[in-house]
């Protein structure tokens, strides 16, 4: 593996993480997963019943091939998120959690304070914690200090598909990060994913853009290539860009 993504000591070839909400069916979701070549797939605990055998969503995911990353979508505060994560672990899932604390069900924006509190608690409990967070560079460092295995700043609000509206802050987060940076939420197009990867994000997480495309399969392939293209460009080390023309034959070359 030439360019692996490493989170909490675990190695992944793919830098595209996929969410499982909003799909037309678990079958469509499973096919999309396949085509993205993702290896990490996140599932909302509120949508699954770990006590009942044969949960359609869980069963649609091949646990041998994908890391099933439970998320705490719907949790309003740290206490609820911690409780959900513990229930998931008790239900037999791996002790990994994508922490989502969204007190406002309208905007679904993450609560910075409770996200930090819950990260501290869950790390203490032995979880590998990947917090969804506002694109705030200081919060990213605080989460890292608290033991987060990665940070997941938002590109724009969930489901909006507006792209990397937080680009400047995400760049600061990437510059300072000691853990992988996964851009989560708001990525609506493969070009947005490529942009995030070009500026040095370690990975992106895509859900709505895949689930609601007219043709989710083609969109899945396109995102796969978007992420690869962006990562490739980042590794290639692009020349600096400028808004002004740069002549290849300088006008002042004759001067001695």
């Amino acid at each position: 593996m030439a360019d692996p993504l490493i989170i909490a000591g675990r190695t992944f070839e793919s830098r595209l993480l996929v969410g499982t909400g909003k799909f037309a069916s678990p079958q469509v979701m499973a096919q999309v997963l396949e085509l993205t070549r993702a290896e990490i797939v996140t599932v909302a605990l509120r949508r699954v019943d770990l006590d009942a055998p044969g949960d359609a969503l869980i069963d649609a995911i091949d646990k041998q091939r994908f890391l099933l990353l439970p998320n705490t979508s719907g949790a309003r505060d740290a206490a609820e998120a911690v409780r959900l994560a513990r229930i998931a672990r008790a239900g037999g899932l791996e002790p990994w959690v994508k922490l989502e604390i969204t007190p406002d069900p309208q905007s679904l924006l993450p609560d910075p304070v409770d996200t930090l509190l819950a990260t501290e608690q869950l790390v203490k409990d032995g979880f590998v914690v990947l917090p969804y967070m506002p694109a705030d560079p200081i919060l990213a460092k605080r989460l890292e200090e608290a033991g987060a295995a990665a940070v997941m700043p938002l590109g724009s609000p969930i489901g909006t598909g507006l792209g990397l509206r937080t680009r400047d802050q995400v760049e600061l987060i990437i510059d300072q990060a000691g853990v992988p940076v996964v851009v989560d939420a708001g990525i609506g197009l493969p070009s947005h994913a490529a942009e995030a990867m070009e500026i040095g994000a370690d990975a992106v997480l895509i859900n709505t853009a895949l689930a609601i495309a007219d043709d989710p399969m083609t969109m899945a392939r396109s995102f796969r290539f978007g992420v690869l293209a962006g990562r490739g460009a980042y590794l290639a080390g692009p020349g600096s860009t400028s808004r002004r023309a740069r002549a290849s034959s300088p006008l002042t070359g004759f001067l001695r």
Partner: protein
Amino acid sequence: MMPTPADGDWVAGTPPEALLSNEDAGRVRRVLAKRRKTVDDFALLLSPGGEQILEELAQTARQITLGRFGRAVQLYAPLYLSNHCVGLCPYCGFSAKQSIGRRTLDVGEIEVEAMALKETGMSHVLLVAGESPGRLDIPLLADIVRRLKTMFCSVTLEIAPQDQPGYAQLVQAGADGITLYQETYDEQRYHRFHHRGPKADYAFRLGALDRAGAVGMRCLTVGALWGLSPWRSEAYHLGRHARKLQHSWWKSQVSIGLPRLHSVPSGFDIPFPMADRSLAQVIAALRIFLPDAGLVLSTRESPVLREGLVHLGITQLSAGSKTEPGGYTRAGQSGEQFPVTDDRSPAEVASSLCALGYDPVWKDWDPAFGRRQS
């Protein structure tokens, strides 16, 4: 410290008739192009000019719904606890004036009903009871909620308006939401239909969801009963009410129920019958004005209409509903609130959603939410 809302804190006010009667489709198109919609824009979406471009409204509403809710529709079912009612609402099958078989289930009977409902696959349950002081008081309802929370991922209630301590007890017991329809926002007309008994207090009803929101109730569902008043001004008030609740109780999920009068007790004529087309316009306008609100459609409506309206913005459907107490285990032994038009089983509703390209979601909540102690 949470603010304590006064009863009737939210005042319906006078609807902007000039906007609601706008005939210019061009003005509505300009609203569609705007990023942020004001309440005046909402009135224009509801206008006859909006009706002229209903397909454009519907397409816009669909795109918003897909982005926010995806291709998922949540299923729920009501569980009627009692049809005893002191109310005299002339449009309702439970009105005290109706001679029907009356019944209030005891806790054991409720658990048996709940088991039967659970076996159909339901995980979201809405407990419904008529208004009958002394029969199902708050401590008893709290006990019922506590028991049913062990069986369902979400337990919500549609009961008479309560005071704030009452709602606090229900939250403490694990209740996830309150559904309360104002019936009509037109105060004069409201008093015409509800002139006696506890329901005559318009303001106490109007302030109820604020009292529930103030004590942390997670889901607040508002609604008007279509048919009692002209639909455009009703929808306008309803949209404003929902938006006010979103602003005041920003941690609560605000949804809008859309019950429409079809079949009513004899002797009552529906004053303003609402056409399917108008219901569709209301749904599209609400979705465009309030992109994040849940929109709920019950089995009062036909399968064909429900399936069509899912594309426009409906996010929750009831299924397999029985509207009489005991209906899931001993149907036909007591009077129902209204006859259901969509009598398909939950499994049939789910498979029709699949065929339409939607994922029927049985569980979209978790018992871990809202519990006060770990």
